[in-house]
């Protein structure tokens, strides 16, 4: 490991972000509306998976409750935007960033609470507590129906593209840009964090708590902070996710979502931000797979009815199992291994 020169690392990450962002913007300019929404969903999920993989992969704390943290961010955005709208102060350009900032803050606070409890717990016991957190969303929204409107959820004004972009600007493209900005910001901050001294503390605590403590790293504080950062990212992702459809409802954040988030980061490649990108892509693919399969398979009605929906789930289950068997390091681990082998082959070639 080379000692990172902070200045150049930051600059390199910044350049990478601009490059990736530009490519995605170019892509969105070509895409029809629904495909742009898919891009937007990938970006929203990326905020969540990136933060999640730092917590689980780099810090070794298992969280099965990130779906609930997403919900916290989503509901914060909805409540803030509704509140502003009702007081007739909505409509300004600052409403969106303001509400997303509030989502990050509130969710980070939630992460602090969970993190304080989590710092005392290990392995399956932490899994048990976070699993209980994941099931909270419907309960809380029903108990406080006055605020959250029960299972029907809340609607808030949809984001329209600014007038400067012209009257025919595709609204879905604007949504994709919003989500892209959030995802790039998250990735940039996390990439620098991972490379910083704090990032090394995270890994040290994961690898050996006792050794980390002997090295003078405040273990509990490092763990709680990891939870706070991860929750903040989940809050931002959840907030953006809500903005894409301008709705929130408890049914959008079921236990399955939390489990799928975990699957996504492990299949993508645990602990790697590039793996988080794979994970985000996978989550969106999972949502769209059923439609694809039913559309392109022409079956007799009886058989089709049995397969409808079920087939997509079976395929996804199989993919999870096969990837884990074939590439234990996830997709990113597989890519890395492949690249290493290729490079070795290239280097060997001129010798012959």
């Amino acid at each position: 490991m080379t000692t990172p020169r902070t200045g150049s690392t930051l600059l390199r990450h910044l350049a990478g972000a601009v490059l990736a962002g530009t490519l995605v913007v170019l892509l969105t300019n070509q895409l029809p509306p629904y495909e742009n929404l898919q891009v937007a969903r990938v970006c929203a999920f990326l905020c969540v998976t990136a933060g999640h993989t730092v917590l689980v992969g780099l810090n070794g704390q298992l969280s099965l409750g990130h779906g609930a943290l997403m919900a916290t961010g989503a509901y914060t955005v909805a409540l803030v935007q509704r509140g502003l709208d009702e007081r007739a102060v909505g409509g300004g350009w600052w409403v969106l960033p303001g509400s997303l900032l509030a989502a990050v803050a509130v969710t980070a606070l939630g992460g602090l609470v969970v993190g304080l409890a989590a710092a005392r717990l290990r392995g399956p016991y932490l899994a048990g507590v976070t699993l209980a957190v994941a099931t909270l969303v419907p309960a809380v929204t029903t108990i406080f129906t006055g605020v959250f409107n029960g299972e029907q959820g809340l609607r808030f004004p949809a984001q329209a593209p600014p007038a400067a972009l012209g009257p025919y600007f595709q609204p879905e493209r604007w949504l994709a840009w919003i989500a892209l900005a959030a995802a790039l910001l998250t990735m940039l901050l996390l990439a620098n964090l991972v490379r910083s001294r704090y990032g090394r503390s995270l890994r040290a605590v994961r690898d050996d708590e006792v050794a980390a403590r002997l090295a003078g790293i405040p273990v509990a504080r490092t763990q709680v902070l990891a939870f706070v950062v991860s929750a903040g990212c989940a809050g931002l992702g959840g907030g953006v996710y809500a903005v894409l459809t301008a709705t929130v409802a408890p049914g959008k954040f079921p236990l399955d979502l939390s489990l799928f988030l975990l699957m996504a980061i492990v299949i993508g490649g645990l602990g790697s931000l590039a793996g988080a990108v794979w994970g985000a892509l996978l989550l969106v693919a999972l949502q769209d797979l059923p439609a694809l399969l039913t559309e392109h398979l022409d079956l007799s009605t009886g058989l089709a009815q049995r397969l409808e929906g079920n087939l997509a789930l079976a395929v996804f289950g199989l993919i999870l199992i096969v990837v884990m068997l074939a590439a234990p390091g996830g997709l990113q681990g597989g890519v890395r291994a492949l690249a290493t082998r290729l490079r070795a082959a290239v280097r060997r070639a001129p010798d012959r």
Partner: protein
Amino acid sequence: MQRFWFLTFDGLAAGAVYAAFALALVLIWRAARVVNFAQGAMAVATAYVGYAVVGATGSYWLGLAAAVLAGLALGALVERVLMRFVGPAGPLNQVIVALGLVLLVQAVLGMVFGNGYRPAPAPFDTDALTVGGVAALSPYDLWVLGAALTVVALLALLFTRTPVGLRMRAAAFAPEVSRLLGVSVGRMLTLGWALAAGVGALAGMLVVPTGLGLHPHAMDLVFVVAFTAAVVGGLDSPVGAVVGGLLVGLILSYVTGYLGPDTTPLAVLVLLLAVLLVRPGGLFSAARARHV
């Protein structure tokens, strides 16, 4: 006061079911140091087998036996064909494979049997016996409680009194040392998975008649509650699983009865935090919690 007794009986009946299922989770944790997230889906699959046999032969007991046998076989199969090859990369990979298995099993069940509810008859009367005007436990509830307790007793015997049980414990706690001592760790793992899935199958057969009926998702909710119960009791302790199951059943019943059905997830979280912040390894944790 009548209400309290009623809720107590109701909670015990539900708790017995959670206890039985939590036992299966504890078994696999003891054998392989992994939480088997596919336990619920596997139990549903074996329950389909069991009720197919019930339908064909008309005998509940044959069906029960078939389900448990199918469980033993399925457990061994999953370990031999899947989990064995996932092991070294870390426990999370096994969790993900288990989750993949959940999706696969539920989808296949849906394709083969359809997504509808199928009736799941109980072997005993489900009408509650009345004690002092309070609807108490039904004969079926007593059978579930009795079955769960019997399994705990049998497991205790197995683990403390038989050589196989001792080898299984050794293989789980210190695989390297065990291997040096001539214990076939691999075979013990397979046995552990088979045993756990067998108990899971039994639990599935006990659970299904108390719920909405047999369908691919019949154990989803039960899994979450039973996992909570196992964690509360301590994942290493079969007794803890039973106590945890009954405790969670009682608390869910009191909370549902006195505060309403929406509040139960909150109550579960409060219970978990209350127990784990005092005893991070669950109520019956044998080993001392790591001090960090």
